[in-house]
């Protein structure tokens, strides 16, 4: 959109007046924000607004109920059920992931033990071979040629 050119720029007196006004307003707001009566009224005002909104929502719900239409409360109840179901699914997912973590740990442990047992088997085979060799030598050494 086109903005008309700014008409009063550069007027020193005008700017001074504005600055004074802004300073005065800032001070006024500062004093209001320190005023317990003003702050208290803000809190009360918020409570009234909330009550008014609740009353308004209730009135609309009553109208919809009379017209045999789903009310806001019905919709909230349905959405809450969906949320609760999702929460339960999330907990099931947690359990599945944790079970999976444990399975992975178990698989790792199983793999480690397989490797260890294979190494032990190899070592035993080697020892057995060494014993066999020693026996053969011992037996061979005892034979007269």
């Amino acid at each position, binding site marked *: *959109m086109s*903005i008309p050119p*700014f*008409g*009063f*720029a*550069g*007027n020193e*007196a*005008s*700017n001074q*007046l*504005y600055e004074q*006004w*802004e300073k005065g*307003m*800032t001070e006024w*707001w500062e004093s209001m*924000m*320190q005023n*317990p009566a003003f*702050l*208290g009224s*803000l*809190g009360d005002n*918020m*409570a009234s*607004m*909330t*009550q008014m*909104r*609740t009353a308004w*929502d209730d009135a609309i719900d009553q109208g919809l109920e009379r017209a045999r239409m789903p009310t*806001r409360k019905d*919709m*909230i*109840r349905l*959405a*809450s059920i*969906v*949320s609760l179901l*999702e*929460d339960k699914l*999330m907990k099931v997912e*947690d359990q599945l*992931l944790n079970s999976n973590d444990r399975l992975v740990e178990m698989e790792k442990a199983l793999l480690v033990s397989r490797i260890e047992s294979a190494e032990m088997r190899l070592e035993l085979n080697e020892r057995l071979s060494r014993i066999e060799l020693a026996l053969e030598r011992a037996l061979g050494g005892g034979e007269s040629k």
Partner: protein
Amino acid sequence: MIPGADATSQVQRGWLLHATVARPPVGQTAHVVVHQHDKLAVRYYAPTGESIQKTPVILVPSLINRAYILDLEPDRSVVASLSAMGHPVYLVDWGIPGEEDAAEDTGYVLHELLSRSIDRICRHAGQPKALVFGYCQGGVLAAMLAALAPERFAGLVLLNAPFRFSEGGRFRDLVAPEVMDVDKALTGGLVSVESMSAGFKLLDPMGNWTKYIGIEKASGDPARMARVMARERWLEENVPLPAVFAREFIRNAYQKDALLDGGWVVRGKEIDLRNITCPVLVVASERDFIAPKEACLPVAEATGSDDVTVEVIPTGHIGCVVGSAASRHLLPLLDGWFRRVQP
């Protein structure tokens, strides 16, 4: 000539521009969603660059803001910058709660939403732990979870996150126990955006006027105007809060100061910040009137970590992530710290 008319005219023109100029798109950085639960979505931004890191960096914004505040503009995006620095970045987008989420409390937010998100992120990254970065209320929530379940935390960054709430500035004035009875003011299903927006406007009453002068001044430069309007989106597009969560948070944090003084029990377990033992980086902004540095810095003394770094950046609450201070101070600080502490 009417004295003061030029400034008034500027405000009028700014107001007109504010009402009519289209807001720029936000959250434009390419990503994939790796986890969804209820309204929450976790967005993944793959790392690029030469020195790619393994430990996931999880960004946790406040519940009352849209997640895109950390991806506001293509050239001013925390997620884009960190991923370009080589970090696998995950952004927790809390989504927008509906009335059906009214009963969600702090326990639900921490254990069902945030904790599970961190778990799924670690699984996605194939790493046992993550570096968690919480901004504003997101920092408070991240610290609470780090105190309750520290197992997945390799490091914790708390940016403009208030912990000494009695020093919480004007917002604390608005919700002080003598001002607000939370059981009366925060009833119903959700705390509406309108209520919160009115509260935020009172944090800087004159800013609601002077911002139009800034908009008018930016109107001659399209790039500057787009930047100003992107920030307006941030300010305009608040998210409603589940009333149960809001009551619990305001009562325990702002009215009882229970995070540092003790007594905030979540699902039967009291929050004790001394349980946080991972490295911690506390960052506050010099000119932050939403989370003043006096409210943010005391957490540095409250954790059980023996590796705590404290930094104060010369900027404001929003400027620290989208202003020039982000590229000058925050992002290099984060990059260096993440590289130093990752396992």
